[in-house]
Structure formats: C-alpha cells, structure tokens
C-alpha cells in the first residue's frame, strides 16, 4: 500500500541582507507576481537599524504579496537586546501580523498566539519541538546544522517541521558588527556598509580559501545550502515545508526549481543542474543534512 504524501509547501525566508529599499520592493513585487511560493517572510531579522528604511513600503509589499496569493509572515529580530527593539517586536505583534519568532523574547511576547518559528531557536529534539507547538507554533524551521537523522526523529508525526533547504546557512549572531569592524568603523556609526554586499561579505582563510560570509552582526556559511538530494526523504519523514533563503540570484527561478522537483515534474539531477546554472555566491552544499561539516559540498564525500 503506497502512502499518500502531502504536498510540500515552500517558504521564502526573510531577506537576511541589507538590500537597498528599491531592490527590496522590486524583489517582493516579482515574488508576488511570479513565484509559486506558499509562505513569504518579510521583516528585518539581523539588524534593527535597517528596518526604518522599509517602514514606508512594508504595507504595500504585504498587500501585493497577499494579492498574489501568498501567506505573509512578519519575521522578527533574532537577537533583540534593547528595550526599543523589544517594543518594535511588540508593535508588529499588536498590528495583527502572522509572526515568525526568532528569539525566545518573541515567544514570550506572543503569549500563546499562533505563530511560526524561524531557524534561530534552539529546537534540537522532539520534546522541545512539542513544547513550542504547545506554546502556539504552527510551523517550525529547524536549525540548519541538524542532520537528516535528527530531523527524522523530530519531525515524525508532527506536521509542523520546516527545513532550511536553500541559501547561505545562518551560523551565528553577535552583539558586534563585523561589517563595521572589517571597515574600521564603530557599530554606532557603521554608515550601513553592509549594504555593499547583497549576499554578505565573503570571508577567506589567510591562505585564500573561501570560508564564511558576514552580514552585519550575523555570520553565515560561504557555501550555498541546496537540499535537492534529500527532498524525497524529507517528505517521507514528515517535513511539511522547505525554506528557501533569499540570495541575490534569481529567486523566482530557485522557487520554481524546488516547486517542479517537489511536484515530481523534474528529477533530482535536473533540479541540481538547474540550481548550479544560477549565479550563486558559493558552491552548493548539503553537508549538514548528511551529518558532515556544514562546509562540505554536494559532490564531496567524507
């Protein structure tokens, strides 16, 4: 007896990088009109100083995405520390948006209201996932470093698990801004230098090997996660959604590639081939899912 598998939904994660406002608006306009994506996250996750630039365009963007049939999710800061930042999170909650919590602060402010959880909360096992479901989480993107075997044990029978399937994986957050530091600027007078790097600033080892990427206070992998090889397994083990994290490449194309493959219209080879034909900031990797170092590439064995 063959098991009937549910359709995998696609989530477009929040833009993690500091894209100029015009670019940000155009990006979401095209997603609204053209991308076969189910859930779209907007909102600033990395640095609260970037948010004001988008305040005037957010409402229009939300409307356009909703007209395009997308569920809009308002993602919130991953490392809030100041009272002002916490107030800002409270304001978007009170405004009635569907919220993506990326810090326990937001879970506390939500006080049991239904919400989404992004990949920044420490949910490493089935008991902790159940705890968050009980607190109102209806979809939970698991941390990017988890291997497939753990995802299997966490996702089984829950109907809420989402997996980080495309983009540079988020690795760390700090109170210190590395974009400012690398440019010899204090964080409080950063001149928004992070705006120069649409995919983050590449970091190499001192002998010139590509290693990491830096995005303000955030550190990401240099490699680009691409979970094409694991999609059949992920669906089989009860994962309900794939998270595609925006990079500067053609994201409508990325979404289409994942949609076609998830629906069985293309093969894994075709999907992987199509992804590698894009202009990406780094080579494709699925090391974390294979329980290898996260930097390992799709064609690397260990």
């Amino acid at each position, binding site marked *: 007896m063959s098991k009937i598998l549910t359709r995998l939904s696609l989530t477009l994660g929040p833009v993690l990088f500091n894209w100029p406002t015009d670019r940000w608006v155009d990006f979401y306009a095209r997603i609204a009109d053209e991308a076969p994506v189910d859930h779209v996250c907007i909102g600033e996750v990395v640095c609260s100083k970037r948010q004001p630039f988008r305040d005037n365009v957010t409402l229009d963007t939300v409307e356009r995405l909703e007209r395009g049939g997308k569920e809009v999710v308002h993602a919130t800061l991953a490392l809030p520390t100041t009272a002002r930042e916490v107030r800002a999170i409270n304001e978007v909650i009170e405004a009635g948006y569907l919220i993506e919590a990326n810090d326990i602060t937001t879970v506390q402010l939500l006080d049991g209201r239904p919400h989404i959880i992004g990949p920044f909360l420490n949910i490493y096992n089935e008991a902790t996932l159940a705890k968050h479901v009980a607190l109102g989480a209806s979809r939970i993107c698991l941390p990017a470093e988890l291997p497939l075997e753990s995802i299997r044990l966490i996702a089984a029978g829950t109907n809420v698990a989402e997996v980080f399937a495309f983009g540079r994986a988020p690795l760390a957050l700090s109170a210190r801004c590395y974009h400012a530091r*690398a440019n010899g600027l204090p964080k409080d007078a950063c001149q928004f230098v992070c705006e120069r790097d649409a995919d983050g600033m590449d970091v190499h080892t001192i002998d010139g090997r590509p290693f990491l990427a830096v995005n303000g206070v955030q550190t990401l992998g240099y490699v680009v996660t691409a979970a094409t090889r694991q999609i059949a397994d992920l669906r089989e083990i009860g994962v309900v959604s794939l998270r595609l994290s925006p990079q500067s490449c053609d994201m409508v194309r990325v979404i289409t590639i994942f949609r076609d493959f998830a629906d069985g219209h293309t093969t894994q080879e075709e999907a992987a081939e199509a992804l590698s034909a894009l202009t990406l900031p780094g080579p494709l990797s699925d090391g974390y899912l294979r329980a290898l170092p996260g930097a390992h590439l799709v064609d690397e064995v260990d």
Partner: protein
Amino acid sequence: MTASPSLHAPELVCPAGTPTGLRTAVDAGAQAIYCGFRDETNARNFPGLNFDRAEMRDGIAYAHDHGAKVLIALNTFMRAGSIDLWKRGVDNAVEAGADALILADVALVSYARKAHPDQRLHLSVQAAAATPEAIAFYRDKFGIARVVLPRVLTLEEIARLTAAAAPCETEVFVFGGLCVMAEGRCSLSSYATGKSPNMTGVCSPPSHVQYREDKDTLVASVGGFTVERFARGEPAGYPTLCKGRFQANDADIHLFEDPVSLNAVELLPRLAEIGVSAFKIEGRQRGRAYVATVVRAFRRAVDSIATGGEVDVGELRALAEGQHDTTGAYKKAWR
C-alpha cells in the same frame, strides 16, 4: 577602587573539570562550584574531563563540608531520540544533592521542574536569555531562580536585566574565555568540523585541530581551514575559530575577536552595585594551579566588596598570564 560599604557581595562561582579540580577550587575559597557529568549532557564534553556519578557524590560531600555549593551543568541541547540521557542526568544530579542545576534546553527545564518541583534551577548562558522578556519566559513558566547572562551585553543592559529579572537572580562571567558570538546560538564549529556546542558539547574540538610547519611559521587549522599562522618562537594559542585571523575586505584581520580573554575585574564593584548575584569564572578545562590562583584572587576581591574595601585590580590583572585581556562588550567597546 572602592565599593560602597555594606554591599551584598556576589557569590563566587568557580569551574571544576575534575574531582581534584573541585577540591582545589573549594580550598581556594570558591563559594560555589559548577561541573558536569562525563557525557554529552554538558557543554565541556572533552576527554579526561568531568565527573562520573560516584565522583559527583563525593565532590558534593566535600564542597558541602567546606560550606560551598555545587551547581551541576546539564547545559547542552538534548539530542533527538536520546532525550532520556539528559533526563537521567537531571535525576542523577538531584539524587547527588546538587544545590542547583544549570540547564539550557526548554524541554529539559520543563522536565526538571515537573519531576523535581523543589529543585533550584539556573538558566545556562547557552540559553542566551538577553532580554527581560526572555528571562520572564523561563522565570514565570519554570521557576528559574538564576539566569547566567550572555557575554554580549553592556553594563547598562546588565543593570536593566538584573532589575527586571527579580526575583530571579543574575550571574555574569567575569574572567576567562570569551565567546564573541551569542552563546548557544553559534554553529561555526559544526560548519568547519561537524561538531558544535549545541550538538556535541564541543567547540573547535582538539580532534579536528592540526598544526603544520610551513617555512618559518606554524600553521594552525580547524577542520582543514587555516585559522592562524604563528611566527617561529611566537606563542601558539589554541586555534578557536572565532579568534582566528581571516581575509575580509582585502585585509588579514582578527575579524571576529582578537585572541583575548575576558577580564572584568575592574568592573566587579560596579557589577555588585547593580545587584548581580554571582560572578562566574570560566575554565573547566583549566589546570589546578591556574584555578587555585584565580579563585584565591577573586575571593579576596569579593571579600573586599563585602567589607567596602579596595579591590586589588593589579593582582587580578596579572592573572591573565601575559595574555591580552578585555572587558569585552561590558564597556560598550563593541559599539
């Protein structure tokens, strides 16, 4: 530096990587010891470190006989499919007579509270509770009695959090290793090696560190990624990923943090005034001589605060063993 008189002096919380380390720290004047079981349940899961169940019982007896508390750290995130290991650790720690458990995983905190309603629970720095709301989450839902604050905060933020956390206490790191990333939320190590603090209780593990000679230099790498290059004769520090030198913006720089350690000794009186309940010294992997010296010096400082006397900053400065030290984020240097 003089503290205002009759200040309530914070408790001095010291590391113990081994049973002899525990006795050393207690003898040197530690008021509380933190340590862990010899398995994945604690965030210093290194070979040769930590306590088996019998050693823990004996250690606690020794500490209690000398008026010191023992806080048992079970501060990693439970591995999927193996959560019984962590729950058993909690049960064993309670049975052994721990004065408090230091926990990070929400589900483990929840289990500990239900299974052991009267047990005192502390929130590990690995839980990265950095706002009044995050602390309220753990305090109000699970009765967390003390929260160990992340090292990414400024003094002003520590003051605000300490006031908001009450009746939950706050504990701050004052000496030793410095995480520049928000603790418990960093996977740099698994990116390079496959092993990380959250998944295996290790960071930049020795098993993945390599040194190789290259002409006149010693090259240190982690997981095959070069992290530092030392000139011949230059002291080669441990190559922790976030303390390495990298190429960014066309320059070789210590992008994340210089190879420095935390030394907040000059801030001790101010932290006590703020109402911080405990000072924590990092270093369960450190040797006995180091621990004895550091603990003795800090105990004198804490006693001085209690009596309104002078804190001998010079003595504690010298402890950095010639290494560079920093007050980290506490004095807004990261702003």
